[in-house]
């Protein structure tokens, strides 16, 4: 948690960013995903096959191949992203995390008090592990041979993981949108592309409106269902239908709003992002995916992931002001996959 030196380092970044003067008109650059469902299915099924054959050891290589496929097929201005992680790094992190999980299960079943002590240890370590996990994800992503990076303090992670969500609950949800805002600020403002930091300009109001609308729709639908069930019990199947539709609609609305708020307030230097994600298109993709996954007993899962990624990428664009050629790389740094793998095994993360 050597934040002081990092803060100083990052504060110096605006100077290292080389402003382009030659061309100041904004260009809309779309993101594009060029992956193919069938092609990814082949990679995915071979991953599963080898993972089973090697009793899980290959899973680290599988993760890398799978991630490489998705990063390398994501293009901006005809240049693809890259996933850099080394399978050995991931395997080490994964083995330690699984060993810790087994130790926790065994310890807590033999001596319950020890289990509680370990749980508290994990809670204390969680902000650190989440920071590490974010740093690993960012460091292992590159565009134009310049890595992304992430640096956040233990305190910051503590606030977004525990303090803000708890405040949101204590205030009966009034401050819950703030917890979302703080979480996104934590993710974006601590991230950088090379030496250039990302910025996030969303406000409490942006998130508050979404929560209010969801609350309103939820109340109206509940009232409607209550009316049907009380006065027209014959129509109770209809009320079931309304409930399912409302549930699905809420999920889609939530994903769309969160994406819209995120990308329309995301900036890097003078470049900004935009998204055209909308409920109809997203609902269509989700329904087609779920339908085909069920019909194929899960074999469509990889193609479903490709379809979803393709759609999401197609909605996002970068409003580039001038050239994107002037970003500068930061110094190299080694980060273990421990945080990432702990997050996967113990089911936490951002």
């Amino acid at each position: 948690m050597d934040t002081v030196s990092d803060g100083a380092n990052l504060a110096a970044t605006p100077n290292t960013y080389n402003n382009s003067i030659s061309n100041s008109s904004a260009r809309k650059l779309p993101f594009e995903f060029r992956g193919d469902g069938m092609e990814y299915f082949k990679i995915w099924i071979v991953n599963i096959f080898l993972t089973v054959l090697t009793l899980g050891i290959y899973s680290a290589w599988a993760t890398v191949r799978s991630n490489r496929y998705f990063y390398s097929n994501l293009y901006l201005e005809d240049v693809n992203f890259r996933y850099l992680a080394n399978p050995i790094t991931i395997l080490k992190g994964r083995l330690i995390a699984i060993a810790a999980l087994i130790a926790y299960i065994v310890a807590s079943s033999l001596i319950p008090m020890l289990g509680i002590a370990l749980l508290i240890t994990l809670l204390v370590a969680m902000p650190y592990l989440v920071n590490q996990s974010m740093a690993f994800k960012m460091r292992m992503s590159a565009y134009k041979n310049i890595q992304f990076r992430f640096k956040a303090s233990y305190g910051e992670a503590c606030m977004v993981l525990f303090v803000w969500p708890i405040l949101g609950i204590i205030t009966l949800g009034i401050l819950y949108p703030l917890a979302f805002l703080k979480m996104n600020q934590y993710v974006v403002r601590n991230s950088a592309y090379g030496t250039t930091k990302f910025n996030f300009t969303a406000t409490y109001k942006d998130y508050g409106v979404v929560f209010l609308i969801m609350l309103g729709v939820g109340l109206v639908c509940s009232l409607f269902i209550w009316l049907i069930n009380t006065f027209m019990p014959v129509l109770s199947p209809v009320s079931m239908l309304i409930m399912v539709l409302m549930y699905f609609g809420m999920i889609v609305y939530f994903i769309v709003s969160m994406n819209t708020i995120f990308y329309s307030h995301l900036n890097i230097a003078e470049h900004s992002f935009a998204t055209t994600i909308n409920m109809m298109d997203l609902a269509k993709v989700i329904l087609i995916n779920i339908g085909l996954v069920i019909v194929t007993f899960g074999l469509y899962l990889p193609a479903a992931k490709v379809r979803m990624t393709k759609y999401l990428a197609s909605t996002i664009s970068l409003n580039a002001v001038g050239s994107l050629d002037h970003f500068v790389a930061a110094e190299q740094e080694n980060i273990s996959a421990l945080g990432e793998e702990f997050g996967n095994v113990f089911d936490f993360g951002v």
Partner: protein
Amino acid sequence: MMIKGYYLDGQTSKRVPARLEIVNRTEAMLKLSLETIGLDVTALESIEKTFLIALHDLTFESRLGNTPREIIIAGEQLFVSDDNDGVDALLRAFKSHAQITGKNSVVQGVGARASHSLLYKVESNLSMIIVAAIFSVAMMWAFFVFALPALSKSLAFKLPDTMTQKLGSSLPILDKTIFDDSELSAQRQAEIQQLFLPYIEQYPKLNAQIIFRAANMANAFSLPNGDIVFTDKFIELADNDDELIAVFFHELGHLQHRHLTRRAIQGSLVSVVIFFMTGDLDTADAVIGLPTLLADMAYSRDFEREADAFALQALQDNHIPVQSFANIMEKLTQLNVKDENSLWGLRSSSTVVEYLSSHPSPQERINRVKQLKEAH
């Protein structure tokens, strides 16, 4: 042999068109040519810069689907090309030349760098894909049908009682949500307790406790800590004590085999395994619930059959007619069919429904009683 692509120096985000070609096979040297455009905008002619690079300074990323090939130069610079076949041919050229001249160091170097192209071959081979798909599906099936139930069974019996006690603490939640206090008279409750007492004493280790609750359904179920809950409607449904005992034995069967603990263990293991097999939870999130649910229901049906078998055996041991088990099942079915009719206005008896059900079909359970009676 010349490969077209672009070059990124790893310092700035400026992309430069570039070419990579072999200069000298024996020395394992390559040439990288960059088409740098002069900083002066007025210079119309592009200036070409060339660099000589030794093969051992290059790291070739493994080939992966349609993605551009990445070649890392001296650990930080990058040459990217869409010409995957060209890069493979280049590697082969070095390899075959080195084999002919017997320069082993070069062969090993190239071999190590190109070893991952084996994966690409596997991934683009149709028959390999089919084999992998069949094998994976079969393994999954075998795992879920045989390995997982066996594993969770042995785990469930090794778990200390403190854990199972914790699992049983769901009754307060049920009390708050769907249960009310029983409306049965204290006398009737005492009668039933008295009725079960001798049988509870037959299985002292199970720590069985009879609990009465009011709810809008006829049901009986057990919790891992030994609580067996009867709803008032269920007590009303039974015509005689034998029927009550039959159901009590069924619930005792669940306790004896630790079904609830096993179900909890299996449920969590299913998601863990699906995560490890498919490698990501993000996509699976939306649909992971489905296979987990289907698996859970299949396991649940097996458990019901096991509990049924326990109940029938216990009835015979205590010289209670097994027909009472069939009778109470019959009544439950009729009641449930009535409920379903009023809700959906249709009767569901297809085999699909059977798969989607957490219990074996009542007909199957009643038939088993008949078979048992015929056998004796």
